[in-house]
């Protein structure tokens, strides 16, 4: 298990535990806890980015994907933090037609990742995700298995 995968798994476990803690706290006290949204956001960001790292990591690491993954974590944590600090909604200070906090939600968290992640996936596909030689290794393993099965039947 590489150090990278260990870190990704740690992020998924801690993120899930964080969300579990918020849920548990909601059962214990009916009051709205000030810390709960922040912990929940950290949990979501850690799970999602942790899962992406876990899926993308191989013996070769994740290479240039570190940057887009870090971007998504910062966007989620920073975006939701900015929502809490955004100015109050009024018709004079709209951002692209929406009040600032709603604009951060819709355009920032809801759209910005589209400009980064799918392109990161496509541009690193050959080097990080699926090299032609990896596909050949899987096909060769399949062929070897079929040969062994056929030999077994003949015997």
């Amino acid at each position, binding site marked *: 298990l590489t150090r990278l995968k260990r870190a990704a798994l740690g992020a998924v476990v801690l993120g899930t535990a964080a969300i579990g803690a918020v849920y548990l706290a909601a*059962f214990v006290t009916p009051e709205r806890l000030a810390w709960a949204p922040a912990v929940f956001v950290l949990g979501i960001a850690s799970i999602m980015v942790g*899962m992406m790292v876990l899926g993308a990591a191989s013996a070769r690491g994740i290479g240039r994907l570190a940057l887009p993954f870090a971007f998504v974590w910062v966007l989620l944590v920073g975006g939701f933090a900015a929502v809490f600090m955004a100015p109050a909604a009024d018709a004079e200070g709209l951002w692209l037609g929406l009040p600032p*906090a709603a604009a951060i939600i819709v355009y920032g968290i809801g759209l910005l990742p589209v400009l980064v992640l799918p392109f990161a996936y*496509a541009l690193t596909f050959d080097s990080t*995700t699926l090299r032609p030689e990896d596909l050949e*290794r899987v*096909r060769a393993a399949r062929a070897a298995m079929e040969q062994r099965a056929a030999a077994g039947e003949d015997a």
Partner: protein
Amino acid sequence: VIQAAPLPPLAQPVIIGVALVYFAGVAAIGFWAARRTRTARDFFVAGEGIGLWALALSAMAATVSGFAFIGGPGLVYSVGVGAMFLVLPAAITNSMGAWVLAKRMRLLAEARKLITVPDALGARYRSRAAQGLSAVAILIATAGYMATNILALGLVLDAIFGTGLTAGIWIGMAIVLAYSASGGILAGIYTDMLQGALMALASVLVFLFTLQSGGGMAGLSASVLAADPEWLGPWGKLAPIAALSLFFVFGVGSLGQPHVVHKFYMLKDPRRLRWYPLLMTLALILTLLLYFGVGFAVKALVARGELAALTRPDDATPTFLLHYTPILLAALVFSGVAAAIMSTVNSFMNIAAAAITHDLPVALGTRVGNELRWGRIATVAISLVAAVVAQMSGTLVALLGIFGWGLFASTLVPALAIGLNWEGATRAGAVASIATGLVLTLALETLAFLRLMTVPQGVTVAGLALVASTLVFFLVSWATRKTAGEIDEDIRLVMSV
């Protein structure tokens, strides 16, 4: 969360005409595909022969049910920006799914010729229990999804053709069944392409009309802010934790939706996955424009006094279309609603039939003789049961309907999405996690539905079950870590590349 109340009558010649043309197109594709379905692999995984566009559009069409066109805009109208948390993760989930699952699932098909999602669990953990339990979870969730979707299809057909609800349910079911039972997923994929394209086109056009009706985004915002500023707040009318719970369940839970994940097996060339996240994400976002646009526009128009306040939020889309768009576009959207429902139903029919004729027998240590024939028979049987349930009991449909997404998420995300990427996951961890998700979701959703238990504000049963099944997965895998190396060599290879 899908259409469960009647729509306003829509029986106008143009709407009926467009719907008939649409159904004729679906029938033609179904007939074409049925002639090419010769084996069980054709029936369940389209012979591993589809292209990238077919994969992306059919995955999108299966993801988006009629909810995105009717119930979704109604939810936006009711709770404002908070409703967006259900669809916001779409910007991330398709890329995340590509990294986490697409390559591994497609390579599993290459290595083992697998045809179902429980097959992948059985192969990963060398466990018939994991395969059988996940098949049971899929069957229960699918029953709920199918009953609610067929009820929704009946309501849409009743509104368009004035058939009455009962006839609408049976006619709708018969249409989907005709191409699903004869052409299997092959027919489903190619009808989904038509349906996905129709949904995206209709959504984009309606979005442009929503902007025109309200004077652009700024005009819509100004109207809403004057009447109800909380609606345009960052969480809308939801509590922050409730909105974030939606983001969590629909974001992370997307990794456990078998009707989408299963389609990765079908791609002809694994290297075409390169552009899958981009195509799928764009198609999904275009299709979801209507979800946001109509809810927002109707809220603004009501705030300005140009429309009367809606008595039922689900009337948002029909009301907007009939008042603010050309009748031809309205007709296209109503056909799009039927398309969205039919494409989802078809996918569920197929995975449920596979669970019955393939996964459960394998879990019990046996195989059915002719999987193609039995797959067709199972498809018919499941559809008949779902239609009877949809027609018989509103309460039962409502109860079944709430199991869907959360049950898939809690039973499949840990064992499948994490397990295919972590060699430390064990068979015991997977089985315990699937069982935890299954029992918790069924028990808590039923108790909450029967009002025997109250869930605190902001907490969702789906979220709770997903957290619990994930933590159980890690804990039991850690406790049984001595067995973690029990992975077949070819599966280990798929997990390592």
